[in-house]
């Protein structure tokens, strides 16, 4: 609980992780898009 109560001390340090968030989000979007594309092509073939 202390950890959460002291969030003001550490949340700004998430700035270190921002490249990970950006890249992770980009990869997740890419994965979703490719999955949709695959479904569409499968429907098209049907």
């Amino acid at each position: 609980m202390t950890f959460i109560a002291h969030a003001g001390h550490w949340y700004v340090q998430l700035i270190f992780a921002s490249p990970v968030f950006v890249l992770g989000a980009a990869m997740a979007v890419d994965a979703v898009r490719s999955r949709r594309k695959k479904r569409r092509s499968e429907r098209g073939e049907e």
Partner: protein
Amino acid sequence: MVAAVGAGAALAAPAVASAHGLVGRADLPIPAYLFGWAAAIVLVVSFLGLAALWPKPRFQEPDERRLFDLPRWVDPLCGLIGVAVFGVVVYAGLAGVGEANLNLAPTFIYVIFWVGFPLISVVLGDVFSAFSPWRATARGAAWVSGRLGRGGVPSTPLAYPERLGRWPATLLVLAFAWLELAYQDRADPSLLAWLAIAYFVVQLLGMSLYGIETWRQRGDGFGVLFGLYGRLAPLVRRGRTVHARPPLNGAPALEMVPGTLALLCVAIGTTTFDGLSAGSIWNNDILGGLRGRFVDLGASSATGTQWAASVGLAVCLALVGGFFALGIRGMRTVGGGHSDGELRARFAHTLIPIAFAYALAHYYSLFVFSGQAMGYLVSNPLGDGSDLFGTAHAAIDYNAISGASIWYVQVAALIIGHVAGLVLAHDRALAVYPKAKEAVRSQGWMLVVMVGFTSLGLWLLSAVTQ
């Protein structure tokens, strides 16, 4: 800077062998997080460069060139040196003074042995196997037994249970890390000496039961870990012949047996916790609450700290393993029908350079500063006032390297280590995925993992002085 040097003086003592990233960062030209962003950019550029310029696997087959043969006396000599040094360290631990920074044993074990051998291994290959005191003793016993013809050492040892894989080594490394990072009497010289003896006995038992080389490659925690680092080296030994090879070339040939990935996660996770436990977040926001829980359960404050550190260590291990698993799960979305287990096994070796980069970045300052203590400890190993080589009054020069220089070395180590991880992952992906495009897409996930570990490493190192 004075404060940083003062911290260095305190931290260099193995009694508090944590917070190794001690430096004065106030003189850095830009905020530390920008180094993290710059490192991420370097990794992204490396990823793009690999995608464009590395179209075929190059490291999946050994590429070795014979250099020279070692004389027959090298192994016995190195073994004798290893046994002699082991004897001196144990004797110092048992017979010397109890102060950690005055006794040879803690500094030798935590600095020269634990930090020095990985550094040497990455340059010269697996040299520890030659100096390993337990291996040398076992080989000596086997040689004597063979000469006497009495069968003192079984000529046909038991078959090693394959399901155990490298788990014995993993558990021993984890136990050592717990001792170093969590146990309250971690720098007690006599305790370290007794534990060294216990380790020695366990190794001899394992080698006598399962064969010297089999146990060395599966159950000798230090031997296995240093051997993994040695796979990054441009030199490798086959029998008595030394071969040259491209750096990293030995890593893809890593035999994936149970416990291997866990060992790499232990190597990274324990270093992660070492950094975390030296930072303000752990000490100001986490430790007190966790320790309080254990104190409420009846533990003393010191014991509560120990168990809080144990919890922190376990969480760091889980985080590292979980993050790698997330990257693997992401790779599965690319297709190809590969299972998580298969991808984990095929890409686990990419963690070797990361484990080394973490160790180098994190322990570099410890090695530079505490390593100098060997100057006076070799002359006065027991701390009893002796002066065997006339260097007993040597001192540690805390100005040997500036805080900013240490930081730059740490940043460089982390970036190079993670780029090396990317190279290994890209090369393996080209072998795993039939289409180069799929291989590159799969490595986008590995890029996230590498950037994550780089950011984590830099944050941990920067947080030490915050």
